[in-house]
Protein backbone atom coordinates (compact mmCIF):
# COMPACT_ATOMS: atom_id res chain seq x y z
CA UNK A 1 0.00 0.00 0.00
CA UNK A 2 2.78 2.40 0.92
CA UNK A 3 4.33 1.74 -2.48
CA UNK A 4 1.04 2.53 -4.15
CA UNK A 5 0.69 5.75 -2.20
CA UNK A 6 4.17 6.85 -3.22
CA UNK A 7 3.36 6.12 -6.88
CA UNK A 8 0.18 8.11 -6.47
CA UNK A 9 2.09 10.96 -4.91
CA UNK A 10 4.39 11.16 -7.91
CA UNK A 11 1.40 10.91 -10.22
CA UNK A 12 0.08 14.04 -8.53
CA UNK A 13 3.19 16.07 -9.22
CA UNK A 14 2.46 16.77 -12.91
CA UNK A 15 -0.91 18.15 -11.83
CA UNK A 16 0.91 21.06 -10.27
CA UNK A 17 2.04 22.10 -13.73
CA UNK A 18 -1.39 23.37 -14.60
CA UNK A 19 -2.08 24.33 -11.06
CA UNK A 20 -2.47 28.06 -11.44
CA UNK A 21 -5.56 27.64 -13.57
CA UNK A 22 -7.80 27.09 -10.60
CA UNK A 23 -7.82 29.83 -8.05
CA UNK A 24 -11.09 30.08 -6.20
CA UNK A 25 -13.00 28.37 -3.43
CA UNK A 26 -10.75 25.68 -2.10
CA UNK A 27 -8.16 26.14 -4.78
CA UNK A 28 -6.26 29.31 -4.25
CA UNK A 29 -6.45 32.95 -3.31
CA UNK A 30 -8.08 35.68 -5.34
CA UNK A 31 -5.98 38.02 -7.45
CA UNK A 32 -6.86 40.97 -5.24
CA UNK A 33 -4.92 39.48 -2.37
CA UNK A 34 -1.35 40.58 -1.62
CA UNK A 35 1.10 38.81 0.64
CA UNK A 36 4.15 40.52 2.11
CA UNK A 37 5.44 42.93 4.72
CA UNK A 38 4.52 46.53 5.56
CA UNK A 39 7.88 48.30 5.91
CA UNK A 40 6.74 51.85 6.51
CA UNK A 41 3.59 53.69 7.62
CA UNK A 42 2.95 57.26 6.57
CA UNK A 43 0.31 58.47 9.01
CA UNK A 44 -0.11 61.91 7.45
CA UNK A 45 -0.75 60.64 3.93
CA UNK A 46 -2.56 57.54 5.20
CA UNK A 47 -0.42 55.23 3.09
CA UNK A 48 1.88 52.29 3.71
CA UNK A 49 4.96 51.03 1.89
CA UNK A 50 4.46 47.36 1.15
CA UNK A 51 7.05 44.82 0.07
CA UNK A 52 5.52 41.94 -1.90
CA UNK A 53 6.55 38.45 -0.87
CA UNK A 54 8.79 36.58 -3.32
CA UNK A 55 9.25 39.31 -5.95
CA UNK A 56 10.29 41.92 -3.32
CA UNK A 57 8.42 44.49 -5.41
CA UNK A 58 7.68 47.70 -3.47
CA UNK A 59 4.22 49.27 -3.75
CA UNK A 60 2.48 52.11 -1.98
CA UNK A 61 -1.00 51.27 -0.71
CA UNK A 62 -3.63 53.63 0.64
CA UNK A 63 -5.67 52.98 3.78
CA UNK A 64 -9.43 53.09 3.52
CA UNK A 65 -11.43 55.50 5.67
CA UNK A 66 -11.97 52.96 8.49
CA UNK A 67 -8.30 52.04 8.93
CA UNK A 68 -6.06 53.61 11.57
CA UNK A 69 -2.29 54.03 11.04
CA UNK A 70 -1.61 52.37 14.43
CA UNK A 71 -3.46 49.22 13.29
CA UNK A 72 -0.85 48.61 10.58
CA UNK A 73 1.47 45.82 11.69
CA UNK A 74 5.04 46.56 10.75
CA UNK A 75 7.56 43.89 9.71
CA UNK A 76 5.17 40.96 10.03
CA UNK A 77 3.89 38.87 7.18
CA UNK A 78 0.41 40.15 6.35
CA UNK A 79 -2.34 39.44 3.86
CA UNK A 80 -3.92 42.47 2.28
CA UNK A 81 -7.17 42.47 0.33
CA UNK A 82 -7.45 45.30 -2.14
CA UNK A 83 -10.71 47.13 -2.61
CA UNK A 84 -11.82 46.26 -6.13
CA UNK A 85 -14.47 48.95 -6.18
CA UNK A 86 -12.26 51.84 -5.02
CA UNK A 87 -11.94 54.61 -7.57
CA UNK A 88 -8.29 55.27 -6.80
CA UNK A 89 -6.13 52.19 -7.33
CA UNK A 90 -4.33 50.28 -4.56
CA UNK A 91 -6.74 50.98 -1.72
CA UNK A 92 -6.67 48.38 1.02
CA UNK A 93 -9.90 46.71 2.09
CA UNK A 94 -8.46 44.81 5.02
CA UNK A 95 -5.15 43.78 6.49
CA UNK A 96 -4.70 40.61 8.49
CA UNK A 97 -1.64 39.18 10.17
CA UNK A 98 -0.85 35.92 8.41
CA UNK A 99 0.45 33.96 11.37
CA UNK A 100 -1.57 34.27 14.53
CA UNK A 101 0.25 34.15 17.83
CA UNK A 102 -0.16 30.73 19.33
CA UNK A 103 -1.23 30.50 22.96
CA UNK A 104 -2.31 27.62 25.20
CA UNK A 105 -6.06 28.00 24.66
CA UNK A 106 -5.73 28.21 20.86
CA UNK A 107 -3.44 25.19 20.93
CA UNK A 108 -5.94 23.15 22.94
CA UNK A 109 -8.80 24.27 20.70
CA UNK A 110 -6.91 23.08 17.60
CA UNK A 111 -6.07 19.73 19.22
CA UNK A 112 -9.70 19.13 20.25
CA UNK A 113 -11.12 20.05 16.82
CA UNK A 114 -8.47 17.82 15.22
CA UNK A 115 -9.38 14.82 17.35
CA UNK A 116 -13.14 15.03 16.75
CA UNK A 117 -12.75 15.83 13.05
CA UNK A 118 -10.38 12.89 12.68
CA UNK A 119 -12.77 10.50 14.42
CA UNK A 120 -15.61 11.54 12.13
CA UNK A 121 -13.42 11.33 9.06
CA UNK A 122 -12.20 7.82 9.87
CA UNK A 123 -15.78 6.70 10.44
CA UNK A 124 -17.84 8.31 7.66
CA UNK A 125 -15.05 9.14 5.22
CA UNK A 126 -15.37 12.89 5.39
CA UNK A 127 -16.04 15.49 7.96
CA UNK A 128 -14.40 18.10 9.98
CA UNK A 129 -13.62 20.45 7.10
CA UNK A 130 -16.95 22.20 7.47
CA UNK A 131 -16.12 23.09 11.06
CA UNK A 132 -12.33 23.40 10.95
CA UNK A 133 -12.16 26.35 8.58
CA UNK A 134 -14.73 28.49 10.44
CA UNK A 135 -13.21 27.46 13.78
CA UNK A 136 -9.72 28.52 12.69
CA UNK A 137 -11.11 31.79 11.38
CA UNK A 138 -12.74 32.48 14.72
CA UNK A 139 -9.31 31.92 16.34
CA UNK A 140 -8.05 34.83 14.22
CA UNK A 141 -6.64 33.05 11.18
CA UNK A 142 -7.28 34.84 7.84
CA UNK A 143 -9.81 32.96 5.69
CA UNK A 144 -7.43 31.97 2.90
CA UNK A 145 -4.83 30.67 5.37
CA UNK A 146 -7.52 28.71 7.23
CA UNK A 147 -8.71 27.03 4.02
CA UNK A 148 -5.12 26.30 2.92
CA UNK A 149 -4.01 24.89 6.29
CA UNK A 150 -7.13 22.77 6.57
CA UNK A 151 -6.44 21.34 3.12
CA UNK A 152 -2.85 20.53 4.07
CA UNK A 153 -4.04 18.70 7.19
CA UNK A 154 -6.80 16.88 5.33
CA UNK A 155 -4.78 14.83 2.87
CA UNK A 156 -2.34 13.16 5.32
CA UNK A 157 -5.28 12.38 7.59
CA UNK A 158 -7.25 10.89 4.71
CA UNK A 159 -4.17 8.93 3.62
CA UNK A 160 -3.68 7.33 7.05
CA UNK A 161 -7.42 6.64 7.35
CA UNK A 162 -7.58 5.15 3.84
CA UNK A 163 -4.57 2.94 4.57
CA UNK A 164 -6.16 1.59 7.77
CA UNK A 165 -9.50 0.92 6.14
CA UNK A 166 -7.81 -0.68 3.15
CA UNK A 167 -6.09 -3.01 5.61
CA UNK A 168 -9.51 -3.92 7.04
CA UNK A 169 -10.58 -4.81 3.49
CA UNK A 170 -13.05 -1.91 3.22
CA UNK A 171 -11.51 0.59 0.78
CA UNK A 172 -11.88 0.08 -2.97
CA UNK A 173 -8.74 1.71 -4.38
CA UNK A 174 -9.85 1.46 -8.00
CA UNK A 175 -13.24 3.03 -7.31
CA UNK A 176 -11.53 5.72 -5.23
CA UNK A 177 -9.09 6.65 -7.98
CA UNK A 178 -11.79 6.61 -10.69
CA UNK A 179 -14.01 8.85 -8.58
CA UNK A 180 -11.12 11.14 -7.64
CA UNK A 181 -10.04 11.70 -11.22
CA UNK A 182 -13.53 12.83 -12.22
CA UNK A 183 -13.93 14.79 -8.99
CA UNK A 184 -10.86 16.87 -9.86
CA UNK A 185 -12.64 17.91 -13.06
CA UNK A 186 -15.81 18.53 -11.05
CA UNK A 187 -13.87 20.96 -8.84
CA UNK A 188 -12.95 22.98 -11.93
CA UNK A 189 -16.58 23.13 -13.06
CA UNK A 190 -17.66 24.09 -9.54
CA UNK A 191 -15.14 26.93 -9.49
CA UNK A 192 -16.31 28.20 -12.88
CA UNK A 193 -19.91 28.32 -11.63
CA UNK A 194 -18.80 30.08 -8.44
CA UNK A 195 -16.84 32.67 -10.39
CA UNK A 196 -19.79 33.31 -12.70
CA UNK A 197 -22.13 33.84 -9.75
CA UNK A 198 -19.62 36.06 -7.98
CA UNK A 199 -19.25 38.22 -11.10
CA UNK A 200 -23.00 38.41 -11.68
CA UNK A 201 -24.37 38.81 -8.16
CA UNK A 202 -21.40 39.82 -5.96
CA UNK A 203 -20.29 38.46 -2.59
CA UNK A 204 -23.74 38.19 -1.00
CA UNK A 205 -25.11 36.43 -4.08
CA UNK A 206 -22.27 33.97 -3.96
CA UNK A 207 -22.85 33.34 -0.25
CA UNK A 208 -26.55 32.84 -0.88
CA UNK A 209 -25.77 30.35 -3.65
CA UNK A 210 -23.38 28.41 -1.39
CA UNK A 211 -25.92 28.32 1.44
CA UNK A 212 -28.70 27.29 -0.92
CA UNK A 213 -26.62 24.42 -2.31
CA UNK A 214 -25.70 23.45 1.24
CA UNK A 215 -29.35 23.40 2.30
CA UNK A 216 -30.71 21.52 -0.71
CA UNK A 217 -27.99 18.86 -0.71
CA UNK A 218 -27.87 18.40 3.04
CA UNK A 219 -31.62 18.38 3.65
CA UNK A 220 -32.56 16.13 0.74
CA UNK A 221 -29.59 13.76 0.71
CA UNK A 222 -29.17 13.83 4.50
CA UNK A 223 -32.90 13.28 4.95
CA UNK A 224 -32.90 10.32 2.59
CA UNK A 225 -29.85 8.73 4.24
CA UNK A 226 -31.54 9.17 7.62
CA UNK A 227 -34.78 7.60 6.36
CA UNK A 228 -32.83 4.67 4.92
CA UNK A 229 -30.81 4.17 8.12
CA UNK A 230 -33.98 4.32 10.21
CA UNK A 231 -35.61 1.67 8.01
CA UNK A 232 -32.52 -0.52 8.31
CA UNK A 233 -32.38 -0.09 12.09
CA UNK A 234 -36.02 -1.19 12.34
CA UNK A 235 -35.55 -4.10 10.00
CA UNK A 236 -32.61 -5.59 11.90
CA UNK A 237 -29.86 -3.77 10.04
CA UNK A 238 -29.55 -5.96 6.95
CA UNK A 239 -28.39 -3.73 4.14
CA UNK A 240 -29.57 -4.26 0.58
CA UNK A 241 -28.41 -2.62 -2.62
CA UNK A 242 -30.71 0.25 -3.60
CA UNK A 243 -33.15 -0.21 -6.49
CA UNK A 244 -31.58 2.73 -8.32
CA UNK A 245 -28.10 1.17 -8.09
CA UNK A 246 -29.42 -2.19 -9.32
CA UNK A 247 -30.99 -0.43 -12.31
CA UNK A 248 -27.74 1.46 -12.98
CA UNK A 249 -25.71 -1.74 -12.83
CA UNK A 250 -27.92 -3.22 -15.56
CA UNK A 251 -26.88 -0.50 -18.04
CA UNK A 252 -24.32 -2.16 -20.28
CA UNK A 253 -22.54 0.82 -21.75
CA UNK A 254 -18.84 0.41 -22.51
CA UNK A 255 -16.44 0.85 -20.80
CA UNK A 256 -17.72 -1.42 -18.04
CA UNK A 257 -15.68 -1.40 -14.85
CA UNK A 258 -15.44 -3.98 -12.12
CA UNK A 259 -14.74 -2.90 -8.56
CA UNK A 260 -13.63 -5.88 -6.53
CA UNK A 261 -13.93 -4.62 -2.97
CA UNK A 262 -17.20 -2.81 -3.64
CA UNK A 263 -18.42 -5.96 -5.45
CA UNK A 264 -19.90 -3.87 -8.25
CA UNK A 265 -19.69 -4.01 -12.03
CA UNK A 266 -20.94 -0.79 -13.52
CA UNK A 267 -20.52 1.40 -16.60
CA UNK A 268 -17.96 4.19 -16.27
CA UNK A 269 -20.70 6.52 -17.53
CA UNK A 270 -22.46 6.09 -14.18
CA UNK A 271 -19.40 6.77 -12.04
CA UNK A 272 -18.48 9.93 -13.99
CA UNK A 273 -21.48 12.08 -12.95
CA UNK A 274 -21.17 10.92 -9.34
CA UNK A 275 -17.48 11.90 -9.34
CA UNK A 276 -18.19 15.22 -11.07
CA UNK A 277 -20.89 16.12 -8.56
CA UNK A 278 -18.58 15.18 -5.68
CA UNK A 279 -15.95 17.56 -7.02
CA UNK A 280 -18.46 20.32 -7.73
CA UNK A 281 -19.79 20.08 -4.20
CA UNK A 282 -16.26 20.07 -2.81
CA UNK A 283 -15.57 23.31 -4.69
CA UNK A 284 -18.80 24.84 -3.40
CA UNK A 285 -19.11 23.76 0.22
CA UNK A 286 -15.69 22.14 0.85
CA UNK A 287 -17.19 18.75 1.76
CA UNK A 288 -17.52 16.60 -1.35
CA UNK A 289 -18.13 13.52 0.78
CA UNK A 290 -21.71 14.56 1.46
CA UNK A 291 -22.44 13.71 -2.18
CA UNK A 292 -19.63 11.19 -2.75
CA UNK A 293 -20.59 8.71 -0.04
CA UNK A 294 -24.37 8.67 -0.65
CA UNK A 295 -23.62 8.60 -4.40
CA UNK A 296 -21.46 5.51 -4.05
CA UNK A 297 -24.10 3.86 -1.85
CA UNK A 298 -27.33 4.67 -3.70
CA UNK A 299 -26.21 5.15 -7.31
CA UNK A 300 -23.20 2.85 -7.68
CA UNK A 301 -24.33 0.26 -5.16
CA UNK A 302 -21.44 -0.04 -2.68
CA UNK A 303 -22.12 -0.71 1.00
CA UNK A 304 -21.89 2.17 3.48
CA UNK A 305 -18.67 0.72 4.91
CA UNK A 306 -16.98 0.48 1.50
CA UNK A 307 -18.33 3.87 0.35
CA UNK A 308 -17.10 5.72 3.44
CA UNK A 309 -13.68 4.01 3.24
CA UNK A 310 -13.37 4.78 -0.48
CA UNK A 311 -14.27 8.42 0.15
CA UNK A 312 -11.01 8.69 2.15
CA UNK A 313 -9.05 7.85 -1.01
CA UNK A 314 -10.91 10.57 -2.91
CA UNK A 315 -10.27 13.00 -0.04
CA UNK A 316 -6.57 12.13 -0.12
CA UNK A 317 -6.17 12.75 -3.85
CA UNK A 318 -8.19 15.95 -3.84
CA UNK A 319 -6.59 17.20 -0.62
CA UNK A 320 -3.06 16.60 -1.93
CA UNK A 321 -3.93 18.33 -5.17
CA UNK A 322 -5.48 21.28 -3.34
CA UNK A 323 -2.51 21.52 -0.98
CA UNK A 324 -0.12 21.84 -3.92
CA UNK A 325 -2.24 24.74 -5.23
CA UNK A 326 -2.25 26.52 -1.88
CA UNK A 327 1.43 25.74 -1.39
CA UNK A 328 2.21 27.40 -4.73
CA UNK A 329 0.60 30.57 -3.39
CA UNK A 330 2.46 30.13 -0.09
CA UNK A 331 -0.58 30.36 2.15
CA UNK A 332 -0.29 27.18 4.24
CA UNK A 333 0.39 27.81 7.92
CA UNK A 334 2.13 24.52 8.60
CA UNK A 335 1.82 24.99 12.37
CA UNK A 336 -1.97 24.86 12.14
CA UNK A 337 -1.94 21.88 9.78
CA UNK A 338 0.42 19.90 12.01
CA UNK A 339 -1.37 20.76 15.26
CA UNK A 340 -4.63 19.52 13.76
CA UNK A 341 -2.79 16.40 12.59
CA UNK A 342 -1.35 15.72 16.06
CA UNK A 343 -4.74 14.54 17.29
CA UNK A 344 -6.59 13.87 14.04
CA UNK A 345 -4.17 11.08 13.10
CA UNK A 346 -5.20 9.34 16.34
CA UNK A 347 -8.88 10.16 15.78
CA UNK A 348 -8.95 8.93 12.20
CA UNK A 349 -7.47 5.55 13.14
CA UNK A 350 -9.86 5.20 16.06
CA UNK A 351 -12.79 6.00 13.75
CA UNK A 352 -11.49 3.52 11.18
CA UNK A 353 -11.22 0.66 13.65
CA UNK A 354 -14.62 1.68 15.02
CA UNK A 355 -16.24 0.77 11.71
CA UNK A 356 -15.22 -2.86 12.23
CA UNK A 357 -17.42 -3.08 15.34
CA UNK A 358 -20.62 -1.44 14.17
CA UNK A 359 -23.44 -2.36 11.83
CA UNK A 360 -23.47 -0.69 8.44
CA UNK A 361 -26.49 1.51 9.19
CA UNK A 362 -24.71 3.23 12.12
CA UNK A 363 -22.41 4.84 9.53
CA UNK A 364 -25.50 6.10 7.71
CA UNK A 365 -27.00 7.44 10.95
CA UNK A 366 -23.82 9.36 11.82
CA UNK A 367 -23.61 10.74 8.29
CA UNK A 368 -27.26 11.81 8.18
CA UNK A 369 -27.17 13.40 11.65
CA UNK A 370 -24.09 15.43 10.73
CA UNK A 371 -25.60 16.53 7.42
CA UNK A 372 -28.92 17.61 8.91
CA UNK A 373 -27.37 19.64 11.74
CA UNK A 374 -24.89 21.29 9.36
CA UNK A 375 -27.92 22.23 7.21
CA UNK A 376 -29.31 24.19 10.18
CA UNK A 377 -26.03 26.07 10.51
CA UNK A 378 -26.23 27.26 6.92
CA UNK A 379 -29.98 27.79 6.93
CA UNK A 380 -29.86 30.40 9.68
CA UNK A 381 -27.36 32.42 7.64
CA UNK A 382 -29.72 32.83 4.69
CA UNK A 383 -31.70 35.84 6.11
CA UNK A 384 -28.42 37.78 6.40
CA UNK A 385 -27.55 37.20 2.76
CA UNK A 386 -31.09 38.01 1.61
CA UNK A 387 -30.86 41.34 3.45
CA UNK A 388 -27.52 42.06 1.78
CA UNK A 389 -29.13 41.42 -1.60
CA UNK A 390 -32.07 43.65 -0.60
CA UNK A 391 -34.48 40.78 -1.10
CA UNK A 392 -35.63 41.02 2.51
CA UNK A 393 -36.32 43.84 4.95
CA UNK A 394 -33.51 44.42 7.44
CA UNK A 395 -33.91 42.80 10.84
CA UNK A 396 -32.35 43.83 14.15
CA UNK A 397 -28.57 43.68 14.55
CA UNK A 398 -28.75 41.47 17.63
CA UNK A 399 -31.07 39.02 15.89
CA UNK A 400 -28.47 38.67 13.14
CA UNK A 401 -25.73 38.20 15.75
CA UNK A 402 -27.87 35.54 17.41
CA UNK A 403 -28.29 33.74 14.07
CA UNK A 404 -24.50 33.86 13.56
CA UNK A 405 -24.07 32.31 17.01
CA UNK A 406 -26.61 29.58 16.23
CA UNK A 407 -24.79 28.89 12.99
CA UNK A 408 -21.40 28.39 14.65
CA UNK A 409 -22.68 26.38 17.59
CA UNK A 410 -24.77 24.10 15.43
CA UNK A 411 -21.56 23.16 13.61
CA UNK A 412 -20.01 22.34 16.96
CA UNK A 413 -23.16 20.39 17.86
CA UNK A 414 -22.93 18.46 14.58
CA UNK A 415 -19.40 17.35 15.37
CA UNK A 416 -20.20 16.66 19.03
CA UNK A 417 -23.28 14.55 18.37
CA UNK A 418 -21.57 12.59 15.61
CA UNK A 419 -18.60 11.86 17.88
CA UNK A 420 -20.96 10.77 20.64
CA UNK A 421 -22.87 8.34 18.40
CA UNK A 422 -19.59 6.89 17.10
CA UNK A 423 -18.13 6.39 20.57
CA UNK A 424 -21.32 4.87 22.02
CA UNK A 425 -21.72 2.50 19.02
CA UNK A 426 -18.05 1.55 19.20
CA UNK A 427 -18.07 0.84 22.94
CA UNK A 428 -21.26 -1.23 22.53
CA UNK A 429 -19.69 -3.17 19.64
CA UNK A 430 -16.48 -3.79 21.54
CA UNK A 431 -18.31 -4.95 24.68
CA UNK A 432 -20.51 -7.31 22.66
CA UNK A 433 -17.43 -8.63 20.88
CA UNK A 434 -15.47 -9.31 24.05
CA UNK A 435 -18.57 -10.93 25.60
CA UNK A 436 -18.97 -13.27 22.64
CA UNK A 437 -15.27 -14.09 22.76
CA UNK A 438 -15.60 -14.93 26.45
CA UNK A 439 -18.63 -17.09 25.70
CA UNK A 440 -16.65 -19.00 23.07
CA UNK A 441 -13.84 -19.39 25.56
CA UNK A 442 -16.32 -20.65 28.14
CA UNK A 443 -17.67 -23.27 25.71
CA UNK A 444 -14.22 -24.42 24.65
CA UNK A 445 -13.19 -24.68 28.29
CA UNK A 446 -16.22 -26.87 28.92
Amino acid at each position, binding site marked *: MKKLLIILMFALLPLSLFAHSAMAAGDGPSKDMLKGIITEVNAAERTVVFEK*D*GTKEIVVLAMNEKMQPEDMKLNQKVLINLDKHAEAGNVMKDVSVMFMDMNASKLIALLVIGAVGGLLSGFIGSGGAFVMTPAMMSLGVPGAVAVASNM*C*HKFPKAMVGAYKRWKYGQADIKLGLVMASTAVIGVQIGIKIQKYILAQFGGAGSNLYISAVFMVVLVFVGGYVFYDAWKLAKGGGKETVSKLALRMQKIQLAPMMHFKTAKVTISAWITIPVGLLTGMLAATIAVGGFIGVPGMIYVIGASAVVASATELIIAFVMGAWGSVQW*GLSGLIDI*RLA*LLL*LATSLIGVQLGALGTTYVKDYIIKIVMATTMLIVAVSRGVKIPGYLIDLELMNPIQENTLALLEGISFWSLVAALGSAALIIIVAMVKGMTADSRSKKAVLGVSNG
Partner: protein
Amino acid sequence: MMTTSFDKNMSAVAFAEAGEHDTARQILGENAAKQHGKSPAPAAKKKPYLKTIIFGTISLSAYYMLFTNEKLVTEIFTMGGWRWVYPVGAAFFFSFIHGAFASNLLSTLGLEAKK
Protein backbone atom coordinates in the same frame (compact mmCIF):
# COMPACT_ATOMS: atom_id res chain seq x y z
CA MET B 1 6.48 -34.49 13.25
CA MET B 2 3.34 -32.79 11.89
CA THR B 3 0.27 -33.15 14.03
CA THR B 4 -3.18 -32.84 12.55
CA SER B 5 -5.93 -30.92 14.31
CA PHE B 6 -7.62 -34.22 15.14
CA ASP B 7 -4.43 -35.41 16.85
CA LYS B 8 -4.23 -32.19 18.80
CA ASN B 9 -7.85 -32.34 19.88
CA MET B 10 -7.42 -35.91 21.02
CA SER B 11 -4.30 -35.15 22.99
CA ALA B 12 -6.10 -32.18 24.55
CA VAL B 13 -8.93 -34.52 25.54
CA ALA B 14 -6.40 -36.94 27.01
CA PHE B 15 -4.79 -34.20 29.07
CA ALA B 16 -8.16 -32.87 30.18
CA GLU B 17 -9.28 -36.31 31.31
CA ALA B 18 -6.06 -36.70 33.25
CA GLY B 19 -6.89 -33.47 35.08
CA GLU B 20 -4.28 -31.37 33.25
CA HIS B 21 -6.79 -28.69 32.24
CA ASP B 22 -4.24 -25.98 31.60
CA THR B 23 -2.18 -28.07 29.22
CA ALA B 24 -5.34 -29.13 27.36
CA ARG B 25 -6.40 -25.52 27.02
CA GLN B 26 -2.98 -24.56 25.75
CA ILE B 27 -3.08 -27.24 23.06
CA LEU B 28 -6.57 -26.23 21.92
CA GLY B 29 -5.74 -22.53 21.91
CA GLU B 30 -2.67 -22.99 19.78
CA ASN B 31 -4.54 -25.26 17.45
CA ALA B 32 -7.35 -22.80 16.81
CA ALA B 33 -4.94 -19.97 16.24
CA LYS B 34 -3.04 -21.86 13.57
CA GLN B 35 -6.09 -23.22 11.85
CA HIS B 36 -8.22 -20.14 11.42
CA GLY B 37 -5.86 -17.29 11.97
CA LYS B 38 -7.92 -16.32 14.98
CA SER B 39 -8.24 -17.86 18.30
CA PRO B 40 -11.26 -18.04 20.58
CA ALA B 41 -8.73 -17.81 23.41
CA PRO B 42 -6.06 -15.46 22.09
CA ALA B 43 -2.78 -15.63 23.85
CA ALA B 44 -2.11 -12.18 25.31
CA LYS B 45 -0.74 -10.27 22.32
CA LYS B 46 2.43 -8.38 23.01
CA LYS B 47 1.74 -4.70 23.10
CA PRO B 48 4.03 -2.48 21.00
CA TYR B 49 5.34 -0.40 23.92
CA LEU B 50 8.79 0.08 22.41
CA LYS B 51 7.49 1.15 18.99
CA THR B 52 5.08 3.60 20.60
CA ILE B 53 7.92 5.14 22.59
CA ILE B 54 10.30 5.32 19.60
CA PHE B 55 7.78 6.84 17.16
CA GLY B 56 6.42 9.06 19.93
CA THR B 57 9.88 10.41 20.66
CA ILE B 58 10.66 11.07 16.98
CA SER B 59 7.29 12.75 16.48
CA LEU B 60 7.57 14.83 19.64
CA SER B 61 11.08 16.00 18.78
CA ALA B 62 9.92 16.91 15.25
CA TYR B 63 7.10 18.98 16.73
CA TYR B 64 9.55 20.54 19.20
CA MET B 65 11.96 21.45 16.42
CA LEU B 66 9.17 22.97 14.36
CA PHE B 67 7.78 25.13 17.14
CA THR B 68 11.15 26.32 18.44
CA ASN B 69 11.99 27.49 14.91
CA GLU B 70 8.44 28.71 14.27
CA LYS B 71 9.42 32.00 12.66
CA LEU B 72 11.98 30.54 10.28
CA VAL B 73 9.73 27.64 9.28
CA THR B 74 6.62 29.73 8.59
CA GLU B 75 8.75 32.18 6.61
CA ILE B 76 10.31 29.54 4.34
CA PHE B 77 7.17 27.44 4.00
CA THR B 78 5.08 30.34 2.72
CA MET B 79 7.40 31.67 0.06
CA GLY B 80 5.22 30.13 -2.63
CA GLY B 81 6.25 28.71 -6.01
CA TRP B 82 8.21 25.47 -5.92
CA ARG B 83 8.47 25.83 -2.15
CA TRP B 84 5.08 24.09 -1.97
CA VAL B 85 7.18 20.95 -1.48
CA TYR B 86 8.03 22.10 2.06
CA PRO B 87 4.53 22.15 3.57
CA VAL B 88 3.33 19.18 1.51
CA GLY B 89 6.51 17.20 2.28
CA ALA B 90 6.28 18.06 5.98
CA ALA B 91 2.66 16.92 6.03
CA PHE B 92 3.71 13.58 4.47
CA PHE B 93 6.61 13.19 6.90
CA PHE B 94 4.44 13.85 9.95
CA SER B 95 1.70 11.58 8.68
CA PHE B 96 4.13 8.64 8.49
CA ILE B 97 5.90 9.28 11.79
CA HIS B 98 3.00 10.54 13.84
CA GLY B 99 0.60 8.13 12.12
CA ALA B 100 2.81 5.20 13.14
CA PHE B 101 2.93 6.55 16.68
CA ALA B 102 -0.88 6.91 16.78
CA SER B 103 -1.37 3.39 15.42
CA ASN B 104 0.97 1.88 18.02
CA LEU B 105 -0.56 4.01 20.76
CA LEU B 106 -4.03 2.64 20.03
CA SER B 107 -2.67 -0.94 20.04
CA THR B 108 -0.93 -0.27 23.35
CA LEU B 109 -4.24 0.95 24.76
CA GLY B 110 -5.80 -2.32 23.60
CA LEU B 111 -7.87 -0.71 20.84
CA GLU B 112 -7.67 -3.06 17.88
CA ALA B 113 -9.96 -3.68 14.92
CA LYS B 114 -12.39 -6.58 15.20
CA LYS B 115 -10.87 -9.63 13.61
